[in-house]
């Protein structure tokens, strides 16, 4: 089945789980184990990804693991909804953080969001290897491309 509008709009990431929740949660984690446990848990909130959307055009290149990304632009509200999936658990967690920051925004608001600043706030890159950092950037890059195309 292809993803229905409901699947997109019911995604808790960015709706029930907000950026503030994540920032608050991160604040009290002081060792790597807790930090990764938190990231892994966030990843568990990703909605199921429709099997038939695992196609080349939805594939995010530049990641060590397989990453899939689809979107739905609600014409009525102007909001852009995203779904991401990966076969790597930590990448799912990182995708969840991205969604918390970017999901359900208008393309214009999305493009105005400084995601690098968020990563810095979360102190993510210091704990993430450069190769994984590249994967993160690839995901964010693809999302921004989609937003730019939808805003045009």
């Amino acid at each position, binding site marked *: 089945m292809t993803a229905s509008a409901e699947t997109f709009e019911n995604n808790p990431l960015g709706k029930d789980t907000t950026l503030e929740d994540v920032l608050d949660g991160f604040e009290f984690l002081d060792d790597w184990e807790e930090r*990764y446990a938190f990231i892994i848990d966030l990843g568990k909130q990703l909605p199921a990804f429709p099997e038939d959307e695992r196609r080349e055009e939805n594939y995010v290149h530049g990641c060590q693991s397989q990453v899939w990304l689809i979107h739905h632009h609600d014409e009525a509200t102007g909001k852009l909804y995203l779904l991401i999936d990966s*076969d790597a658990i930590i990448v799912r967690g990182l995708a969840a953080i991205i969604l918390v920051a970017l999901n359900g925004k208008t393309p214009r608001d999305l493009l105005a969001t400084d995601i690098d600043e968020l990563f810095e706030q979360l102190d993510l890159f210091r704990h993430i290897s450069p190769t994984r950092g590249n994967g993160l950037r690839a995901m964010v890059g693809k999302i921004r491309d989609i937003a730019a195309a939808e805003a045009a």
Partner: protein
Amino acid sequence: MNDLSMAKTAPQARFDVDAVRRDFPILGQQVNGKPLVYLDNGASAQKPLAVLDAMDRYYREMHSNVHRGAHTLGDRATSAFEGAREKVRAFMNAASTREIIWTRGTTEAINLIANGLAQRLKAGDEILVSQMEHHANIVPWQMMAERTGAKVVPVPVTPAGELDLDSFNSLLGDNTKILALTHVSNVLGTINPVAALVEQAKARGVITVIDGAQAVPHFQPDVQALGCDFYMFSAHKLFGPTGIGALYGRAELLEEMPPYQGGGEMIERVSFERTTWNTLPYKFEAGTPAIAEAVGLGAAIDYLDGLDREGMQAAEDALLVRANELVETVPGMEIIGTAKNKVPVMSFKIEGLHPSDIGTLLDQQGIAIRTGHHCAMPLMDFYGVPGTARASFAFYNTMEEVEQLFTALQKVQRLFA
């Protein structure tokens, strides 16, 4: 027997891993607040002080261009550079330094040969490779096949990660012109029975190319005993510098092959009417070579010669035995590559975890491994995995480090539970 002859035949000091580790400055550091456990030696090995010092001394005391001969520094540089070539010759037991070509590494060496042999190939000819080859021993042949109409034919591997010898026998046929085979698999650690396969190939007049990149860190190849036509390795996997490697080629074939690159050094005489090539090995060494790196590789070989190689190999084997014993302490862990004859390389997967998840959380614990497809996608396809996690050991790794790896893997598993 008098004291002098005793000294001559006395074995080197018995292999002592703690003493050896002190020779590698990089191993003493902390990573992510934990002592570094470096288990990514298959990707690149660390360098002993002897190599660092030799390169430093070369630049401080003797650097100049080689083979120009007009001054003292030029002579010093040339003699250090050609001295290193002799060390590589002895290391591989080649008959002559004419047969030792400097390259940037294994990859360039294979490209050089593929390019040089292209003129021998025609449509319908076959290049036999194996399913466990690194991309560097597949893609250059595919590129040549495209140019000539030849075909690259893979020999399958068994589930244990050994070469399927029955298939090898049936695939080695009248159309086979080249056998390009890895001595040791970078993913599986399997040591292929190269001498026997080369013998079979040679009986049919097939040219044999052996990729020694993963073999030389663990044992010394003897190209005359192996009987192969070409053998190559990269210095950086042999505890030497990056950017240089060596290619052994049988003189007769090297003479026949056209040069790979044109430029300085590789020529005898240049005119706009006719340019003639330099003699071996210089014909294949266009441009100013990586001189300091050659010196560094020579120092790495000297360093290894000074170690108790037998004791070193026994210590490496013991690491692998211990690792295999500990696999059962991590539920869901499975080794990929269980050949009888293998070097201490352990590819594995853990049920429910992606290799990159494993690699990230080991790194947090100071442990460096490799994750991914290891430039061996056909092999990943065979095992039906997107990649593996790979711990590859060197002689400077300790039993404690093997145990730390497994303790860390148990922790990884708890985190994902």
